């Protein structure tokens, strides 16, 4: 009875070992689609403009995604992969143009225009809030210095009549 027990134990051990080795050797789906798309979504293929690479269905874009996967598998970083794509296909593949040359206009002009616009709006609103000179600080009982006394007197008389 002892012999079959040993055989069973050895068989179980062998099965467990080979199973774990097989699991360890099973090809992992790396790099994942998410890892590829994280880089692809910041790239644009010149063939299908305005469509990010991660959702572009064309054959060219499929090839590009495969290239990203291959480079990730080789251990390249996101920056290295983006640099490769810029060298191969030009800076226009980037979703964000590099900060150099005339590209600076894209980053500088909008904030500058925003500040100018805000300044103009501020000055306009401020002028709206200014009280008109003729109704500034009105005091009904005190005569206005330098004002037209006759006119005020006649106005007050008229008002008294109406009361």
């Amino acid at each position, binding site marked *: 009875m002892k012999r079959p027990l040993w055989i069973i134990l050895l068989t179980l051990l062998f099965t467990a070992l080979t199973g774990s080795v097989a699991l360890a050797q099973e090809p992992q789906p790396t790099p994942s689609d998410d890892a590829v798309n994280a880089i692809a979504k910041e790239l644009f293929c010149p063939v299908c403009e305005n469509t990010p690479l991660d959702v572009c269905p064309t054959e060219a874009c499929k*090839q590009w995604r495969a290239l990203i996967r291959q480079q990730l598998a080789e251990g390249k970083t996101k920056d290295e992969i983006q640099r490769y794509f810029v060298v191969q296909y*030009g800076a226009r593949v980037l979703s964000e143009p590099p900060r150099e040359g005339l590209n600076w206009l894209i980053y500088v002009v909008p904030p500058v225009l925003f500040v100018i616009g805000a300044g103009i709006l501020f000055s306009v609103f401020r002028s709206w809030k200014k009280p008109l*000179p003729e109704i500034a600080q009105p005091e009904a009982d005190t005569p206005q210095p330098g004002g037209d006394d006759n006119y005020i007197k006649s106005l007050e008389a008229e008002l008294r009549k109406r009361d």
Partner: protein
Amino acid sequence: MTENTPNAETPKKGVPTWVQVVIWIVLLSLLGLVGLGLRRAQQPVVAIGSPLQDFTLTLFKGYEYQGADSVKLSDLRGKVVVINVWASWCKPCEAEAPFLQEAWEYYEPSGQVVFLGVDYVDTEPEARASLEKFNITYPNGPDLGTRISQLLNRNMGVPETYMVDADGVLRYIKIGPFASTGEILTAINPLLP
């Protein structure tokens, strides 16, 4: 009636004149830039009859020109240059590939014509597979940075073929695939020196 008129002596507060001038200059410059961009967008293709701007094509290994791994257009003066822009993912390019190779084999012995394949927005393994599939033997290389295609046509759509005469002047443009080898020969023959 003096109450109804604003005080004329009150100094005007507002944006200083020099700031206004600067703002106008900036706005007009921006408009100018936009206008230039639109003008360029309306004339995307190089004009026939004008000299083609020089460029250097880096070549795939195995597809060099006279042993060199790159070729400069200006170094090919005295020869007719056929620049074919293509891609492995482009089905019409596959349709015309045998015609181009046949035409190349026809002219190669004379040395009067050079074919250059410019691989547009492609990956090298697929490009090489395509070249091998159609037994292409003329010099071929990637359009690095899409500089060459942008030089030819800002709205590039492959395949496109450009022919430059012996003086470096652009003489022929074909947008789309050639339908036969005869069509290619008919385009090249009048350009031969």
